[in-house]
Structure formats: structure tokens, C-alpha cells
């Protein structure tokens, strides 16, 4: 049975983050301006500490005795999410309330706790990250569901309050209602899963589900439950058929929040998918054919629609939204492949995607036009003269997204393609390959516009973001795109270790129903 103390010991980083979030939300309401200015840096710091904690405090034995499906998953996932989230926080932390703080500094406005939201914003971001980290140690469907909601709910609020303007609110409402609908799908799926197997515990669920699938005993309920859950999770990973909200929400949300949205919910969705599909044979006996068929269609449509959609955009944020849809399509290829190796490939791709996203968005967040996001490609023209670092990092990020070797993104794609070939999914490989070519066109726009064009009328009033944190984040993560490929061997090894099967499989008889 479950051992509560060892379970709690596993959750030290999450508990720390939760505490930090509470402290930050109070600190954000401080009357002293210098204290309020600490909120952003402290949020970054606490994410870094949580990342370190999750490495230091991780105890494999305890994780195994806690009855996790993939006991060492947390070893890779939690530090990865925490460190990348620290980068994303650096992009968004100081962004919120920037104009308010500026006018307070000029004593043009008085501080009012009702209008200052930076503390809340950072706290909600930390809650969301806590949710992702909790997912890694989920043992049952309820935990999985609650962790997923902990990821999503704060993001709705973040979209709404980050700038508090009409497009932001509209995006938030859209995001919230569609998210609620997706959650409905997910819950219904979970209910059917419970109905099919009679258990909420993931490890029991796996044993029963695999037994049902092996005997061919009527597993319609089970498969329907899984498919409904997948559809629900599609919302989180912006995959077809739940992808359509992404461009609108990404465009409406301020750019730093868009960066957050394009990574954190995606990791959550894919982690949940890995855990759920592990219950029906992902990485072990192989997924049932019906589920593979569903994932296959989703993957093909997601990457194709994503890339074609991105071709047609004029707004950079919408392009990034479609590009993030396309990347979900690539990652779904790994789930279709379904081998143990493919899970590693997916986890590595998420990492590469996260680093690249942070570098690119960091670069884009460095610049502002008329106090708002620079969102048109023309805004980038001639950027190299005024913002050389941002230019370089946007270019690096875009090339890494394209999959140009030797940048980090190439190795992510490399692994996904290898695992798809291993599974014999030649058609999907062809689709990924062709889609990469399509994507090359719009990524080239990102990479080349700032470097090759001369400043135009529109780009002349593009100015520097007053905060230095986005530049710092994009430089750190952009350099990682170049430096990490040197260590790609050890990185891949640690990913593989994180999904290794439990060393000792404790034979627990199925609990009586």
C-alpha cells in the first residue's frame, strides 16, 4: 500500500514552490516599491531552487515504493520544467505591471493593491509549474486530473491579468470556456476508464487494462475512455481537433504569457498522455491498434494544419501558435511509434522545444513597439542595428525550430525520426520531413528579417523592453542551443534513465474489487 511519508518526501520541490507562490503573492502587495521589484527575480530564484531541490531530494527507492508507473520520470521532468520555467518567468515576470510601476516611479499614480497584479501573476505561474511537477509523480487518476487543472486554471488567469486589456480578456474567456469543455472530455474519459477497470490507481489500472486488452475481452469502454481522455488532453497540447483556440489565445495574450502558454501546458499534456497511455501498453507491449490509428491521424493533421496555418500569418504570435501546433504533431509521432525509446525521444523533444521556445520568445520579448508587443514581421526589420543580441537569439531559436544541425532542435527531431523509423512508421516520417520543409519558410522569416533587412518605417519606433531579464533569459537559453549539443550524449542518457523500468517490480496482488 501507499506510504504517505515517502510520498510526501517526494514532493519537497512542489511544496517549496507552493510556499514561494504564497509569499510572492503577499510580497506583490507591499507598499514599498523596492520590495515589489523583488517579486520577479524571486520567482525566478524559487524556480531555480525548486529545480535544484528536485534533483537533490529525489530518492529512487521512495519513488518506487510510492507505486509510480514510471518512478524515475520525475528525475528528468521536474528539473527540466523548473529550469525552463525559470527562463519563461524571466521573460514574463517583470513584464506585468510595467507601465503601472513606471507611473508610480514618476509619482504619476499612487500604489493601489487592486491594480498591482505582478505578485498574483507570478504566484499563479508558480502554481502552474507546481502542477506540471506534480504530474510527474501522479499515482492515480484523481491526482492526474487535479494536477492538470492546477496547470490550466492559473494560465487562464495569467492571460487575463497580465495586461488587463480587451484582447487579453477576450483571449482569457475563450481559453477558459474551451478549456472547460476539454476538461469535460477528459473527466468523461476518466469516468469511463474507472468504469472499465474499477480502479483509480494507475498501476492497478495498467494491470487490469493490459489483461483486458490481452484477452480481447470487451474493451470498448476502456478504449473509448482512453480516446476521450486523449481528446481532452489535445487541448493542452494544442493538437487537432482541439487546436483551434491556440492562434486566438496566443495572439490575444501578451507575448511573455504566450511563451509560457506554448510550453508549460504542453509539457503537462504530454506527461499526462505518457502516463495514461503507459497504462495501455505504451513503451511495453505496444498500444492497441485503434488508439494508434487515432494518434496517427491526429499527428498527421496536427503537423500539417499547423505548418500550413503558420504560412498564412502576418502576426508573429499567431505564427508561433501554429508552429507550436506543428511541433505537437511531431511529438505525437513519438506516441504513435509507441516504443520505450519513443517516450525518451518525446521527453527529449519537449526539452529541446522548451529551450528553443525560451530563446526565441526571450528575443522577441526584448523589443516592444509603442509599449506593446512587437507582433508584425515588419517590426523585426533592421533589428540587428538596435538589438544585436535579440536578433542573434531569435535567429538561433528559429534555426533550431527548423531542425538545422548542429543546434539542439535537430537532435530532438533526429530522435523522433529514429524512433518512428524503428516502429516502421515511414509515412509519418515522410510527413515530418515534408512539414519541416514547409516550416523552414516561416522560420527563415524569423531568422532572416532582423538580419538582412534594413529598418523600415514601422520598425523605427521599436524600442527596448525596459526590463533586462528577457535579454538575459534569451541569451542563456540561446547559448544553450549551441552548447548543449556538445553534451547531447549525456543528456540523452539521463532521459533514458528517467524512463527506465522499476528496478524491483513489487508484485502486488490486485486489490479486490
Amino acid at each position: 500500500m501507499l506510504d504517505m511519508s515517502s510520498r510526501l518526501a517526494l514532493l519537497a520541490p512542489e511544496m517549496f514552490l507552493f510556499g514561494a507562490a504564497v509569499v510572492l503573492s503577499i510580497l506583490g502587495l507591499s507598499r514599498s516599491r523596492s520590495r515589489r521589484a523583488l517579486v520577479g527575480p524571486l520567482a525566478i530564484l524559487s524556480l531555480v531552487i525548486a529545480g535544484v531541490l528536485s534533483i537533490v531530494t529525489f530518492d529512487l527507492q521512495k519513488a518506487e515504493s510510492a507505486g509510480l508507473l514510471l518512478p524515475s520520470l520525475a528525475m528528468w521532468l521536474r528539473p527540466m520544467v523548473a529550469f525552463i520555467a525559470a527562463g519563461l518567468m524571466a521573460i514574463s515576470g517583470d513584464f506585468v505591471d510595467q507601465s503601472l510601476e513606471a507611473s508610480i516611479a514618476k509619482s504619476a499614480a499612487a500604489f493601489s493593491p487592486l491594480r498591482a497584479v505582478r505578485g498574483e501573476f507570478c504566484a499563479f505561474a508558480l502554481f502552474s509549474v507546481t502542477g506540471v511537477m506534480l504530474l510527474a509523480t501522479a499515482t492515480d487518476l484523481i491526482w492526474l486530473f487535479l494536477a492538470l487543472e492546477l496547470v490550466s486554471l492559473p494560465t487562464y488567469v495569467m492571460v487575463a491579468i497580465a495586461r488587463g486589456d480587451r484582447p487579453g480578456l477576450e483571449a482569457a474567456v475563450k481559453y477558459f470556456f474551451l478549456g472547460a469543455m476539454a476538461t469535460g472530455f477528459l473527466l468523461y474519459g476518466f469516468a469511463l476508464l474507472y468504469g472499465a477497470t474499477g480502479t483509480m490507481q494507475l498501476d492497478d489500472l495498467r494491470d487490469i487494462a493490459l489483461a483486458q486488452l490481452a484477452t480481447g475481452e470487451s474493451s470498448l469502454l476502456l478504449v473509448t475512455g482512453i480516446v476521450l481522455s486523449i481528446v481532452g488532453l489535445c487541448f493542452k497540447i494544442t493538437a487537432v481537433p482541439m487546436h483551434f483556440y491556440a492562434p486566438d489565445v496566443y495572439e490575444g495574450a501578451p507575448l511573455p504569457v504566450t511563451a509560457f502558454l506554448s510550453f508549460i501546458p504542453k509539457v503537462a499534456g504530454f506527461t499526462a498522455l505518457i502516463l495514461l497511455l503507459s497504462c495501455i501498453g505504451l513503451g511495453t507491449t505496444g498500444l492497441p491498434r485503434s488508439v494508434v490509428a487515432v494518434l496517427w491521424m491526429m499527428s498527421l493533421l496536427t503537423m500539417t494544419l499547423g505548418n500550413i496555418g503558420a504560412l498564412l500569418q502576418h502576426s508573429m504570435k499567431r505564427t508561433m501558435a501554429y508552429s507550436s501546433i506543428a511541433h505537437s504533431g511531431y511529438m505525437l509521432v513519438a506516441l504513435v511509434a509507441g516504443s520505450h525509446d519513443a517516450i525518451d525521444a518525446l521527453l527529449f523533444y519537449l526539452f529541446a522545444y522548451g529551450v528553443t521556445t525560451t530563446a526565441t520568445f526571450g528575443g522577441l520579448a526584448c523589443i516592444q513597439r509603442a509599449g506593446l508587443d512587437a507582433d508584425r514581421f515588419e517590426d523585426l526589420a533592421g533589428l540587428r542595428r538596435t538589438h544585436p543580441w535579440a536578433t542573434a537569439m531569435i535567429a538561433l531559436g528559429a534555426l533550431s525550430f527548423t531542425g538545422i544541425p548542429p543546434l539542439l532542435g535537430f537532435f530532438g527531431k533526429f530522435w523522433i525520426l529514429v524512433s518512428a523509423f524503428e516502429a516502421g512508421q515511414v509515412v509519418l516520417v515522410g510527413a515530418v520531413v515534408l512539414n519541416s520543409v514547409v516550416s523552414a519558410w516561416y522560420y527563415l522569416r524569423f531568422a532572416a528579417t532582423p538580419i538582412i533587412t534594413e529598418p523600415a518605417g514601422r520598425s523605427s519606433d521599436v524600442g527596448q523592453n525596459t526590463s533586462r531579464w528577457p535579454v538575459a533569459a534569451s541569451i542563456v537559453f540561446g547559448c544553450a542551443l549551441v552548447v548543449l549539443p556538445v553534451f547531447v550524449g549525456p543528456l540523452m542518457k539521463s532521459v533514458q534513465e528517467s524512463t527506465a523500468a522499476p528496478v524491483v517490480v513489487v508484485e502486488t496482488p490486485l486489490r479486490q474489487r
Partner: protein
Amino acid sequence: MSAAWITILAPLLGALLIGLSPAKAARWIALSVSGVALAAILQLVMNFPGWKSGLFESEANPVPFLPEFGITLWLGYDSVAIMLALLNAVLVPLCVLGSFSAIREREREYYAWFMVLSASIMLAFASRDAILFYIGYEFTLVPMVFLIAIWGGPERKSAATKYFLYTFFGSIFVLGAILWLGVSMHAATGVWNFDIDALIAYGQSLPASTQWWLFLCLAGGFAVKVPIFQLHTWLPLAHDQAPTGGSVILAGTLLKLGTYGIFRIALPCAPEGAVALAPFFAVLCVIAVVYASLICWVQRDVKRLIAYSSIGHLALCVLGLFAFNPIGAEGSVYYMVNHGISTGALFLCIGMVYERYHTKDMERLGGLVKRMPIWAFFMGLFTFASLGLPGLNGFVGEVLCLMGTFIADSGSTPDNYPGVLGPWYATVAASGLVLAAMYLLIMLGKIVWGPLTEPHDDHHAPSGLSVDLNWREIGVLAPLAVLCLWLGLAPGYVLSNLEPACTRMLAPFPAIVQAHIAADVQTAHDSEKEQN
């Protein structure tokens, strides 16, 4: 550290240094690091054991890079690779020297990108590991795109975009094929290994139908880079719009990455597929030779004319490879080197005129021999080399490619290398050469001889250059002229050194071609029977 690493790391370090140093120093840093790379590769060439063995020779053992997939950092050359690497090492410093007066804005960036380009080409030629090769091969895209898009002509943006998309499209198929080979080798043997030699050994063991697809993906991917007819439309624009240095490297070594890829990976990995698809590719090549020549005939822009002529020349090069006999293969490799020298030199010559007159239009230039006799000498020499005048380098490669194609029929050749092409292919391709002589001579007649025509507006003044070539420019062209003469007059020295590598690559082919011809005869026989 081995010399092969120096050829890659020296330019990379140079690029970093250029980034840190003042703009005035950039050209000198670029010149000296490319000199270091040249010295390193010369030192390798001097004591190169691969001339005789025809094998990949490396100085150091593989360094594991990605042990999970058997990817290693393993550098080494065979005689073909080292020839092409040497070509690149020779061209890069000359290009840098030639860019001194042409590049006047954003100098640091220019030389930095140029060094990165040089490093990634060197990496592609030096790799023994297929993934490492791909990294070098693919990364050439990035510096080249920026070279075209920043310092190019008026249509530079569309030229760069087209270049990027076309070659990315081609190379991603190469990646797919290499990955597929690696994965299926892992499935068959349980070992991850991306060593090119290991992939070749595995590829040859595959059934013919699989090899057909494999070859289509590999050769089709490389064909974009070569470029083979129908996939060539990026080339005229890119060559035309690129700055002189960029055009030289593009024609000199980047296109050779495609032919080298066909020689090194596509042909040996899937020989059955190569034999089955040889007529298809050969017909495309023959069409390209004639078609490119006809287009050249009507060009007004000199640079564009040279660009189109590259398509024809490279097509001949690929045709020689598909002859499947040592004469064709050696001729092809020899031609790769010679085309790099003579076309590169022609681009440099045209660049020098462009710097003085700001036009490349044949209607606005004429009789330049009266103004620039030294330039006219070099221009004439390289044009003759390019059109294949006996005694100059172009002739040797062309004739060998055509000879190889001519004898590549089902009858046994002197060395018992049967082929699937034959006299028809060679004859039609040879007609393309006659056309080549025609358009090149017309070009020469118009701009070098004839009545003196100069554009009136702004010549001489803004460039600050002397009327005729100055010593720096002579220094750029003279080494290439010497190479043209030497390679044309004494081809035996290099050819004999290329032979072991070519025969080694061709080893599996005679048996396969034999079987292929026998099968063809059989099916023809059967269908005859059915009709009766």
C-alpha cells in the same frame, strides 16, 4: 590534434576572433585562418596514405559523440574527399583576398560568415560518420543564405529564400535515408553505427527494391544540391545574386557537396538502385547539358551565363558517375575539381569587372581587352579552360566523362566494366559541349574583344581601383591559372591517385550491371515469346 580538425576549427575560431576584433582587422584574420587551414590540409596531402589504398584514412580514432546511436566524431579522408577539401582550402583564401575591395559594408559579419561556411564545408568533406557529414552538409545553408541575402544583388532576398528552401528540401530526404539505413542496420545487427563505410556495407546487402527507394531518396536529395535538371531552378538566381566570394564557393565547392554525396554515399550504399535508376538520371543529365547550353546562348548577363553553364558542367560530371566504370568516375571527380577552379576563377574575373563598371550586362560591356589586357588574359584563359580546350584542365575531365559514358554499354569495356548507358548518351552530351564552346566564345567575343563599349555613368571613380587588375587581383587569379595549366598538362599525376578510390567505390557494380542486363535480356526474350 589532427590536421583535419585544424581545417575545421581554425576557421571557426577565426569567426569568433573576427566577432571580437575591430572591423579593419577582419579581412586579415580571415585571410590568415584560411591560410592556416590550407597549410594544415597541404601537410595532410603531402603524407597522405589514401592515395594508394583508396581507403578512408584518418589520423585519430573515433571519439564517441552520441554513443546511444553510435554517432562518433571521426574525421578522415579518402583521395576524393581530400582533393575536394584541398580545393575548398585553396578557394577560400583567394575569395577572401578577392573580397577586399568588393565588400565595403558589414565587413566583420561577411568574413565571419565566410569562415563558418568554410568550416562546415570542411566538416562535410572530412566526416567519416554519416550524421557528422550531414551536419556539415546542412549547416552550409545558414552562412550561405546570409551571404546571399546581405551582400547579394538586387534580387537577393528571393534568391536566398529559394536557395534555402530548395536545398533544405533536398537535404532532409538525405537525412531521412541516412536515418533509415542506420535504424534498419540497428534492427538487423543490433549495433548502432553511422560510419559511412558500415552503412555502405549494410546498404549493399539490402534487396534490390529497397535499394531502389534508398537510392531515389539519397540521389534525389543530393540532386538538388548538384543541381540536376528540373531541380536546378534555384541555382541561376543564387549564383547570380550572391556576392563574388559567395558565388565562387557556391560553384566551387558547395555544388560539389552534391556530387560528392552521390559518389560517396548514394552510389555505394544502393548500387542496385543506382543501376536501375541510372538511365533515368543519365537522361536528365543529358537533357541538362543541352538545355543549359541553349539557355546560356541567350543570356545577356555574364554571371548568369556562367551560372547556367555550371548546370551543364555538373550534369556531365554526374553522367560520368553513372557510367559505372573507372574512366567515368575518375573523370567525374577530376571534373569536380576542375570545374571548381575554372568556374570559380570566372566568377572572380566577372566580379572584378563588376567592381569597376557596376554591370554584368554583355550589351553594355565590350572590347575590354583595350582597357584591361591583364584581365582579358585571365578571362580568356579561364573561359578556354571552362569550354574544354585541350591542354587546359576542363578538357581532361570532360573527355573522360564522355569516354566513360560512351563505353558504358552492355558490351564489355577494356576493364570489364559493363554499363547501362552507351554511345547515344555520350553523343548527345557531346553536342552540348559544342554548344558550350559556342556560347562561351560568343561571350568572350562580346566583352573581351569587339569594339570598346563601357557604361558611361559611374565607372572607375567610386571603386577606387586601377583601370586594369592590381597586384592583389593578379595574386588571386594567378594561382588558379597555374592550377588550370598544371591539371590540364599533367593530369596523370592526380588521376593515378584518384584511381584506387574510384575502383574501390565501383567494386560491386560490374556484377550488378551484368545481372541487370541479363534480366533485361530475359524479359525482352520473354515478351517476344509471348507475342509469338
